[in-house]
């Protein structure tokens, strides 16, 4: 029974991974924007960023997902019509799911990146500028590499939660691993078998991610002297 559905489950695993990967890209972009806004001198930007993180982190993923999935499309159609667009803009469930999860986890990554940026001593940037580096070069050579190192532990955590959150995109009709498992469970009347298989696949993704991110963490932390060493 399980063997018949394995190819379908693996296909679903690929969809789960692409949803997670694409959402992470959006979330990282929004996270950087959010962190920059929170640390900016403009009060309006700070307020907007605070509103974003507070609201997103105060409402369950499932509710946000349903809200953005339906509400987002209505808003988009309205905007498109106002701009004189005759036809409507086509969003498939993949784009909708990715946008939604990216939007939600952008709020969590905002906090992670903000914490990391604040942990970089301001003297380092000043030193870079004093050496005659352009601000862009300071950003690329000094700020970003350190931010990556400082943000990695939080980022690892955010990524693991994000992967698990993709399980709920099945509710909005995306044919991910969870939806495949659910359909197979219904068709064969063997829910335990298929949900256990899904659990095993998620655990495998978690394990591989942890191994990879821990290796990355060691690489970026080379040269850091730990206080208790």
């Amino acid at each position, binding site marked *: 029974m399980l063997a018949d559905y394995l190819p379908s489950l693996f296909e679903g695993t690929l969809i789960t991974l692409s949803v997670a990967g694409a959402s992470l890209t959006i979330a990282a972009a929004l996270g950087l924007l959010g962190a920059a806004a929170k640390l900016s001198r403009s009060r309006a930007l700070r307020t907007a960023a605070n509103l974003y993180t507070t609201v997103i982190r105060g409402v369950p*993923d499932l509710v946000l997902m349903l*809200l953005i999935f339906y509400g987002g499309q209505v808003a988009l159609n309205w905007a498109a019509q106002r701009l004189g667009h005759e036809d409507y803009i086509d969003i498939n469930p993949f784009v909708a799911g990715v946008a939604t999860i990216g939007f939600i986890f952008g709020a969590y990554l905002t906090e992670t990146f903000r914490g990391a940026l604040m942990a970089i001593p301001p003297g380092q940037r000043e030193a870079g500028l004093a050496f005659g580096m352009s601000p862009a070069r300071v950003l690329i050579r000094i700020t970003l590499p350190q931010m990556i190192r400082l943000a990695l532990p939080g980022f690892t955590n955010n990524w693991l939660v994000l992967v698990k959150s993709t399980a709920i995109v099945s509710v909005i009709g995306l044919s991910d691993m969870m939806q495949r498992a659910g359909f197979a469970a219904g068709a064969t009347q063997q829910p335990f078998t298929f949900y256990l298989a899904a659990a095993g696949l998620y655990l495998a993704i978690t394990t591989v991610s942890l191994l990879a991110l821990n290796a990355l963490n060691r690489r970026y932390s080379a040269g850091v002297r730990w206080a208790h060493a």
Partner: protein
Amino acid sequence: MNWDAIQSGLPGYLDGAWLTLQLLGASLSIGLIAALPLALLRASANPWARQPVWAFTYVIRGTPMLVQLFLIYYGLAQFSAVRESALWPWLSEAWFCAVLAFGLNTCAYTVEIFAGCITATPRGEIEAARALGLSRAQLHRRILLPSALRRALPAYSNEVIMMLHGTSLASIVTLLDLTGAAREVNSRFYAPFEAFLTAAVFYLALTFLLVGLFHLAERRFLTHLRPRMT
């Protein structure tokens, strides 16, 4: 905005909020009670005590709660041995299955939070207690646990908020919690935006309420750790 939909759904939302709080309370209690002894094992120096608990938290934290809930609710019923067992009257209740899944989850996360705080206890506190001649049990009861649990408060408050949001999955196994109430309104009025926005407002209010309560608790129990005015 379809205000009629929101208004006629309001009693459902209130009932739903109450069920959400019940689910949250029950699963947090189970998780907390089970987490205390497990955290001590997890922080123990003995690998035979430590590793089984690590495996438990790793598996639970490494898989989505939705999958765990489906395994318990739909999965276990696949076996006639389970359906004929003495546990079935419990397991046949969606409410019980949800609390079990949520409880297992929060337990695993709480174990990690507590164990982290126990291992991070300053050596000096323990040495001082030994010097005073406290027994092992006294050391745990009087020094180690009160100190560690207080320091765990900020991380635990995050966990409680995550669980509040996690309970929204109850709607997927037929329960009429806050999210379930929203899905009912949506299906009756075809007004998803209004239905889920109202639920979001309720969740936001509950989140603020819980965050406020934890701030009060932190002020009460963590005064000694606040930065001092100089």
